[in-house]
């Protein structure tokens, strides 16, 4: 049934007006993605009232194109300035930024955009042919399964950082503490706000990340005496072709990332854990895990593939179940209702033109998107040629605007500055930032899922083992937790002690 409907969808998506809308959406989306903090959800929300006068299919094409643009654009600042534009671009900074510092920004961006596209394509194909079936699988995921997934994400990251385990622990605990500030949805009580109204809304992840990564990095560079004079990069599209020659080497990482991304993406809030997990797996299975974090192309490929696969997969619960898979999808869903459509399981039957037009536009949108951003790779990369003294103030301003944009509040700019200092101190004392960020973004979700599960089971932990899906995922997660202990032992048993202790 898929193909016939898809062709019908293409007839709707490939009209001159809808193609124009696509290009417009992607351009705006890329700009929004570049500005950290503004994010896809805000961008879509701002445009929403304007779509009211359009036919619903054109309206959703405009909004989704903007979303694809933001997904592509998020990687740009991650790679160039160490500032993740969206939560799922955090893992992209780990290797993308070192690459840019080594003058390979063009390669890193090409790898990021290409992987994004591959991840997106994988998810779109699955949605085209298996949407109803996948919706049924998504329904099987309740709070216990959700918690098991969070556990798996943490466990896949454990023991990867290297360095001092105690420092990692401090970092992760600090992340959990920050995640707990604000309203607790299970009891409806405020926690750790100490009577300050400003603390009530908690710490926004984006603000923390802009501070920790972006401002922290700038402070470090300033300390290095402003010697950083800009990087020589070539302004040539050949960099794209040259990178493409290398990329097939990472075929496995692409497949793994796309699979993780899709699978995690159709549950709400899945894109960020997916990108982290994909990065962790890539490092774990790599022959050169020691290169990760120092500028390894594979470290860009893995999170970007997963993030964009998850970003596309987030559309699936929206059109099949009527629940948004991501904040951006939540705003789009509001749009559906405003346009007079009812999101949920009947959408495929009631409005096939809309659904198949949307699915077809996912192909055209992402294809046009990747070509557009790739064409600008040399331009983006050459931004780093600008001398540091000119670039830095600009970045600080953009960071401040981004932080403000998250909640339209001044206090977030101060949080950003504080987080910047924390980021600087962490780097100086050699504490890892990744566990803090992971705990801050997932702590809240994991805690809610854990407590919902325990309410459901009236306090019994058995709920994580007795339900088949949760049980299987929990088992894998526990295995990963044990892996750092088991691996050396296993290798010794096999009589190959030389490669022990490398993770």
């Amino acid at each position, binding site marked *: 049934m898929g193909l016939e409907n898809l062709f019908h969808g293409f007839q709707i998506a490939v009209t001159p007006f809808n193609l124009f809308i696509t290009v417009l959406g992607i351009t705006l989306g890329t700009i929004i993605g570049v500005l950290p903090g503004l994010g896809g*959800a805000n961008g879509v*929300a*701002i445009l*929403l*009232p*304007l*779509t*009211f*006068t359009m036919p619903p299919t054109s309206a959703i094409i405009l909004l989704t194109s903007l979303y694809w643009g933001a997904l592509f654009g998020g990687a740009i600042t991650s790679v160039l300035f160490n500032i993740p534009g969206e939560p799922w671009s955090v893992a992209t900074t780990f290797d993308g930024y070192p690459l840019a510092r080594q003058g390979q920004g063009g390669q890193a961006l090409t790898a990021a955009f290409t992987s994004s596209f591959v991840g997106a394509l994988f998810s779109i194909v699955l949605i085209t042919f298996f949407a109803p079936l996948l919706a049924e699988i998504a*329904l*099987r*995921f*309740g*709070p216990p399964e959700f918690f098991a997934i969070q556990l798996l994400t943490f466990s896949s990251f454990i023991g990867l950082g290297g360095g001092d385990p105690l420092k990692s622990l401090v970092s992760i605990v600090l992340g959990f503490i920050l995640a707990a500030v*604000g*309203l*607790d*949805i*299970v*009891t*409806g*009580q*405020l926690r750790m*706000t100490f009577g300050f*109204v400003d603390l*009530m*809304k*908690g710490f926004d992840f984006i603000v923390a990340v802009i501070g920790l990564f972006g401002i922290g990095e700038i402070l470090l560079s300033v300390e290095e005496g402003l010697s950083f004079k800009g990087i020589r990069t070539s302004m040539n599209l050949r960099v794209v072709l040259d990178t493409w020659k290398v990329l097939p080497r990472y075929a496995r990482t692409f497949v793994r990332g796309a699979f993780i991304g899709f699978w995690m993406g159709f549950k*709400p809030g899945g894109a960020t854990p997916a990108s982290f997990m994909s990065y962790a797996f890539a490092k774990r299975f790599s022959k050169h895990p020691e290169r990760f974090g120092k500028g390894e192309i594979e470290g860009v490929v893995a999170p970007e593939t997963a993030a964009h696969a998850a970003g596309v997969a987030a559309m699936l*619960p929206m059109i099949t*179940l*009527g*629940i*948004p898979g991501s*904040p951006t*999808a*939540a*705003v789009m*869903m*509001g*749009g559906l*209702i*405003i346009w*007079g459509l*009812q*999101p*949920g*399981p*009947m*959408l495929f039957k009631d409005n096939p033109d809309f659904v198949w037009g949307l699915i077809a536009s996912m192909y055209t949108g992402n294809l046009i998107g990747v070509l557009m951003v790739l064409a600008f790779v040399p331009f983006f990369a050459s931004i780093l040629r600008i001398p540091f003294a000119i670039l830095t103030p600009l970045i600080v301003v953009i960071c401040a605007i981004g932080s403000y944009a998250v*909640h*339209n*509040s001044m206090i977030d700019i101060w949080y950003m500055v504080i987080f910047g200092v924390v980021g600087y101190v962490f780097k100086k004392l050699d504490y890892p930032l990744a566990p803090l960020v992971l705990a801050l973004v997932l702590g809240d979700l994991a805690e*809610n899922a854990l407590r*919902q599960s325990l*309410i*459901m089971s*009236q306090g*019994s932990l058995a709920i994580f083992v007795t339900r088949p899906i949760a049980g299987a995922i929990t088992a894998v997660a526990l295995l990963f937790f044990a892996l750092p202990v088991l691996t050396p032992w296993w290798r010794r048993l096999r009589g190959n002690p030389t490669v022990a202790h490398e993770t």
Partner: protein
Amino acid sequence: MKLEAVLAIVLMLLIAVPASAAAWEPTKPIEFVVPAGTGGGADQMARLIAGIAEKHKFSPRPLLVINKAGAAGAEGFIDVKGRKGDARDHTIIITLSNLFTTPLHNNLPFNWRDYTPIARLALDQFILWVSTTRPDKKDFKTAKEYIAAVKEQMGKPEQMKMAGTGSAQEDQILTIQLEQALGLKFTYVPFRGGGEVCVNLVGNHVDSTVNNPIECVSHWRAGRVRPLAVFDTARIPVGEWKDIPTVKEALGADVSYLMLRGIFGPPSMPKEVAAWYVALLQKVSETPEWKKYMDDGALKPAFATGLEYVKWVEENETLHKELMAKGGLLKK
């Protein structure tokens, strides 16, 4: 000199003409604060209003919807409370029941009396939903059957689970009301939003919900959930909703609850400014788009302003205090 004089006259005319019509008009974009997350009922309604105003050119300046969802909406309420001068005149806030519940549960420094009432737009219904595809093959066709099963499971490890949005908010208040009226006990599981609640029902992770109609309607039409009773004194008079009995009819208990979808302005908003917003919302509520949204979501049209609105809010605040005190949800 001459040119300046002409300019002065033109300027005076420009200022004087609208002023003589005694009408205030916005001179910059209006911030429309939503004290809830993106995608929920209040957010949808705010964006719909902004969209309708844009389409029909009801406002010379656009309405910008801004979500301030922190601390069960307190972030938005407290922000609006602090607006003064020009910013005050260009801000409105849409409220849900958290206008009452959040300050009562957490002792936060705001109350509806702080704000300028503008209009009540609609009232949102609540319905008792169950799944039609339960793994234990029980298929509850009526509220009576389901309540009997709830009683049977009380105190056992498989006590029936009721899912709802948040804690100490409307869904939990309603659950406690139902428990107290019929001598029941549910395990209440809080989730982040109504859509998530209904999907957890469809996935059979919980046994029932008290979702708003719009949050479950699509799953109902797909045959995955069944509405058993409406928490109102009368049936919903539109479409297929007509066939759902009230709680009184189905269970003989007087349990009803309606949620406010209303608009307030910041403290001491001038009369002529508030009047402009009332007129705007009146116009919006008369458009076909608004009427369609009301029908699709089985919302109760309840446009009211001035004293009628204030009186309703007053009564509801008392009601919430009583209900929350009974349920042990007040801040101690």
